[in-house]
């Protein structure tokens, strides 16, 4: 078998194999997209306000300190479930207000504590952001994060 043939065969097997795996990946992504839009997230309540809130989150690069569903920087707490942690499941209006108040009270200036800047958001932007955080808290994250009972 000539060397040239061996090498072009090697290339073809590499391309063919990679294409095979990539095709499966694309197929699964398509199926997952469908799952996300029907079961994984609360697509039905993806309101204008939630979309605007996502914009606030992105424009201010919040993920460069916080994680959301565990992704982002690890300088500040996870916010994918902050709405739940702050009691939004039983008292949505209260959690909504807490998020707004928290944003307004920054930076705390407390010594030795990490500081969050004040982003000078308008009242409407704060509402949108709180709606966004409420919406992501309803995502089916397969049980993540673990919620051990605090002592």
């Amino acid at each position, binding site marked *: 078998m000539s060397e040239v043939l061996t090498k072009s*065969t090697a290339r073809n097997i590499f391309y063919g194999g990679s294409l095979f795996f990539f095709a499966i990946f694309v197929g699964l992504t398509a199926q997952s997209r469908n799952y996300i839009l029907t079961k994984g997230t609360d697509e039905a309540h993806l309101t204008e306000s939630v979309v605007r809130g996502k914009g606030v989150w992105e424009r201010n690069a919040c993920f460069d300190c916080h994680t959301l569903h565990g992704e982002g920087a690890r300088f500040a707490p996870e916010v994918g479930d902050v709405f739940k942690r702050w009691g939004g499941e039983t008292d949505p209006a209260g959690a909504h207000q807490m998020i707004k108040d928290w944003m307004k009270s920054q930076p705390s200036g407390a010594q030795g504590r990490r500081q969050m800047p004040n982003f000078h958001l308008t009242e409407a932007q704060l509402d949108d952001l709180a709606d966004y955080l409420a919406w992501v808290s309803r995502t089916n994250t397969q049980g993540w994060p673990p919620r051990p009972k605090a002592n």
Partner: protein
Amino acid sequence: MGKVDRDRLPHHCRMNAADTPAPVATADSDWGPLSALPGHPLMWVLIGSELAVFGLALLGYAGARARDPLGFALAQDNLDRLAGVANTALLLASGFFAALANRAAHAGEAAPARGWLAAAALLGLGFLGVKGFEYSGEIAAGHDIDSSPFFTLYFLVTGFHALHVVLGLIILGIVARLATPAAVETGTAFWHMVDLIWLVVFPCLYLMR
């Protein structure tokens, strides 16, 4: 393996004395341990990767089952074992034809080789047909990839295997067109691997309980 074609080697770095290829005793253009295997060595890289993937998945199956033996056993009862056995027979016969194709190709008989490859592919299609029939029954009964840990693994492992059958059919088609001994040997090596994986997957998912 043939000699290295010195003319095709580059005259790299004519200006950099340091980079002139030293006459190192590495004219071995073989692929190390992969050279002993029938078919193209890189095909065996693919085969090795696949075996590792299915092996890990089945070990994962054993781990997941250990957490819920009853749930797995109940879900397992829904599988159509007869269809599984039929598919085993189909793949075994198909592998037999593929081996005959390889034998014919090495004897320089391109036309019979193509015939055996076509027979092997036909049985491969039969496998997919039976598998599709099985899937449709299971989905109609309300089982899908999300419905339980057993069915998640069942659909992933058998689905991934079925996609390998599809890829194998494509490969058989390509090597049938070439019909050279090297190509047929490489293509049938992949096909036998698909066969081999089924021989491990089938008892683990259908029979062991």
